Each structure stands twice: as C-alpha cells, then as structure tokens.
C-alpha cells in the first residue's frame, strides 16, 4: 500500500531534498518516534509546523508517498500497538535490580529506537502526540493530539514532490 505524508521545511532544505531525492535521518535522544524521517498525514500540520514551536512556519511542504506493506507498519495508537508497547515495557522493566529514569521524552525515544533496531521488519511507525506540554495534570488527557509517522529510511519513499506555501489558497 501507499501512504501519504507531508513534511514542512524551509525552501532551501526542500530544494536540497528534491535535488538529492532523499531526506536526512533525524537523530537525537528526544525524537518521539526515534531516529528516522518524520511526516504528518495531515497537510495542515506540516503547513503549520515550526509556527507552533516558536520558529517561522514552513514555507515549503514536501509531499511524499511511502510504499509499505501492512505488516511493516506499526501504529502505536491501535489496541494492538498499545498492547505491544505496554508488554515490551513490562518485560524490560521487570528486573528488580534497576529502574528506568522518569524522563518521558528520553524513554520514548529509547523505546522506539530499541524497536527500530531489533524489529528490522518494521519500516513505518506512527502515533499521535500533543504538540503542547501538560499544564495541569489530570487523569484524562484533554490536550488535542496530532498524528505523525516516522519512516525508517529513504528506501520506502516512492515519491517526493514539493508544495510552496504561496501556492496554497
């Protein structure tokens, strides 16, 4: 199957990606879906990307088609995805001799990188996250969330096109 994704960036970066026909892999210790190439399935999220993080909003949006088989895609929002994540955490934490520190972003990134590295069959990971931090903690999470997905590498990207902000009515 093919899935559609959008990646907001600057015009210079978009030109470079279009020229090389490949994306740089995002790496770090706080990447929500680990090391990979990030996309939003919703165009407006990519269009507004940057604007919500305090920098300028994207002036170019790259449109990609990702070719992936159903069994190569792990959606952490589904019951099966959540069950997998919870079971995995339970199994790696069941040891009494150590505990995992409580930094949510670092743990999130480490867990996903563990999955990326050891599940070579997975090519795409997706999940919904809130772009805003929790202000008042409640049992129910009232924040709005947006879906994003991360592609392991450029091999799964079947098409890249560019949409200029100025061309969007």
């Amino acid at each position: 199957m093919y899935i559609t994704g959008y990646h907001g960036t600057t015009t210079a970066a978009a030109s470079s990606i279009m020229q090389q026909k490949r994306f740089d892999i995002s790496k770090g210790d706080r990447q929500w879906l680990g090391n990979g190439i990030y996309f939003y399935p919703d165009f407006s999220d990519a269009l507004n990307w940057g604007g919500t993080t305090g920098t300028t909003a994207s002036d170019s949006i790259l449109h990609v088609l990702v070719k992936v088989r159903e069994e190569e895609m792990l959606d952490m929002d589904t019951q099966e995805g959540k069950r997998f994540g919870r079971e995995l955490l339970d199994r790696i934490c069941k040891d009494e001799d150590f505990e995992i520190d409580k930094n949510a972003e670092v743990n999130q990134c480490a867990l996903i990188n563990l999955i990326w590295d050891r599940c070579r069959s997975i090519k795409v990971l997706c999940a919904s996250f809130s772009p805003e931090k929790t202000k008042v903690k409640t049992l129910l999470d009232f924040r709005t969330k947006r879906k994003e997905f991360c592609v392991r590498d450029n091999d799964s990207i079947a098409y890249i096109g560019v949409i200029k902000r100025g061309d969007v009515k």
Partner: protein
Amino acid sequence: MIDSNRLLAEVLGGFERLSQTEKKQLLEKYGFVLEDNNSRTTSGAKAVHRKKQTISLGVVRGMNSKGVNGANVRFCVKKGGKAFPAKERIPVVAQIKKMENKD
C-alpha cells in the same frame, strides 16, 4: 495488521537470557537512563525513589507528624554524616532523614 506477539519475540529475542549487566548495557545503548536499585541502601531513600518522588529542594510529598498525607515534608540527604545538597540526585550511599514539617 501487525502481530504483536511476533514483534515482541523479535525485540526481546535473547534479551531475557542476558545477564543483569548485559541487559543494562543494551538498554543504555538505546538511550535509557537506568538507576541501580541496589545502590540505595536505606529504606527511606528507596521509598522516595520507588514512589517516583523527587527530592528537589529537599522537599517531598509525604505524611507529616500529624498524619496528614500529601503534606510537604522536608528531608535532609546525608552522605557519610555530611549534609548533602538535596537538590542533587540521591548519592550511591545515602541516608534520608526526616528533619521537620514544613506545613
């Protein structure tokens, strides 16, 4: 549709047979920050740690002398008899001593 059992087997393949040290090294390789439970020798320190409470500024949520739960209770972290800045993480050999009630 993914098969979560198959994925678990892929991720954890061989993991549970590793020694403690090997498991820790592997998890740290992926970026997990691990804390050694055995390094905390006093029950007080361990309790604070297990309840996921921080000791920032030397204040934790706990039960005060009046039996009120959730009160701010001050703790002094000591290392080898010397007062240790409570702002820092609990050191390897630490004692937590309840000093006084803040509330």
